[in-house]
């Protein structure tokens, strides 16, 4: 028999539920069990290489609170710690790449999607997905607003080593700065290579980049 959850202040509803044979909302553990089974069964025939996309890592589990409930301090600290530990840097050590390459990446929203069990063909590697959610070049109108505008990003911050590092890390794994932020952990997930991220950093910081032109 499932545990009965009586909704606050609705004794009459509870009475109805009892009359109907005690059907009620399952508790948290039962819900998780039912839903995780659905997730497990919902993508049949998945090649093993993609199966891990369905399972959650520890950070994703923490970041999936129903109703956007607040993280505990411990949870926040755990997410930040895992994020920090995941960050890798380009072999060259250069955090600022070629802004023109970065421009192409920033406006490329494709790559890594799966259809019919096959990975999307991406000639130039995965796109960096930036313009899906951010204003970059202020003249470009086909851009999203899930994230803040990044127009003038470099003009406002300069191109110091410290700025480059923070920018790089926030793209590589933004959860190192804002645990459970909406932005994908583009480097940690393997979606972008460190060198690609360095190109995007250049696009954001370079004074010649359209991001920093009026």
């Amino acid at each position, binding site marked *: 028999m499932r545990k009965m959850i009586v909704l606050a202040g609705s004794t009459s509803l509870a009475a109805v539920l009892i009359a109907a044979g005690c059907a009620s909302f399952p508790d948290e553990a039962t819900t998780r069990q039912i839903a995780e089974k659905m997730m497990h069964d919902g993508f049949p025939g998945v090649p093993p290489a993609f199966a891990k996309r369905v399972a959650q890592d520890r950070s994703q589990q923490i970041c999936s609170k129903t109703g956007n409930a607040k993280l505990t301090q411990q949870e926040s600290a755990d997410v930040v710690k895992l994020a920090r530990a995941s960050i890798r840097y380009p072999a060259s050590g250069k955090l600022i790449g070629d802004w023109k390459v970065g421009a192409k990446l920033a406006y490329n929203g494709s790559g890594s*999607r799966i259809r019919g069990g096959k990975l999307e063909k991406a000639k130039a590697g995965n796109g960096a997905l930036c313009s899906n959610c951010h204003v970059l070049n202020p003249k470009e109108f086909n851009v999203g607003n899930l994230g803040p505008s990044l127009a003038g990003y470099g003009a406002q911050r300069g191109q110091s080593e410290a700025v480059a590092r923070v920018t790089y890390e926030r793209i590589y794994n933004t959860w190192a700065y804002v645990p459970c932020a909406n932005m994908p952990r583009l480097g940690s997930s393997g979606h972008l290579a460190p060198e690609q991220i360095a190109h995007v950093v250049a696009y954001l910081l370079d004074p010649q980049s359209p991001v920093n032109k009026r």
Partner: protein
Amino acid sequence: MPRKVGGIAAFALVCLVAGGVTPALAQSGDPLGVGRKMLAEDNPGELWVERGKTLFYQKRGPKNASLERCDFGMGPGQLAGAYAALPRYFQDTDAVQDLESRLVTCMVALQGYKRGDLAKTAMGNLDRMSDVEALVAFIASRSNGMKMNVPLSHQKEYDAYKAGEYIFYRRNGPTDFGCITCHGENGKRIRLQDLPNMTDRKQLQDVVTSWPAYLGTQSNLRTMQWRLKICYWQMRLPDLAYLSDISVAITSYLNYQGNGAVIGVPGVKR
């Protein structure tokens, strides 16, 4: 006939509240509105409704039967208001089913189609129109003008609702996205595409009462099953199974919250 225009109000909000995040858009108020209105006024989805009506009453399939004996929850052949009360629990399948799952159950049981074949053809493309999409459009349209009235009484309906809620907030895959990532705030867009805030009652109701919908980008009528499959594709997860428990659970969670809102389908979207 009622029609829904996805997201015009939401877009206007962007320009007013955020002062036009995108400079090029801010200059002329609502540069997308004219086109959206023109497309909404004449919805090619109506052609799917007509086709679905013909298909519903035709004797078809290996058993040469019509779908008139199909029970969508209101009794055999009773279509009025059926869509308004779905998903719901069905005793004969011992499962919670949305309209499309139930339709496929009937096409298999009454008409003798193979489930696997239907799964392969249910989502039409530019070379082949789907019968399932037309039938869903027709059956759903028989609830037009009625209020959403999804039941929550059987234990499996409670389970589906809660599982749907859990999955709505579940972040997964290489993008770390869950439904909530894109559908949890007002006035948001992916590029120029509006993202309804599904945690806002009014916006949620506008969505659940306007699917199935004709999509200009698809030149096709699409169902909620398709919508969710594409969401998971964009999230970079593997192929979501047709009529998966995941999509039925999410639909249960959303449609139940839509209760009280008036249905007007097919909708028309970008």
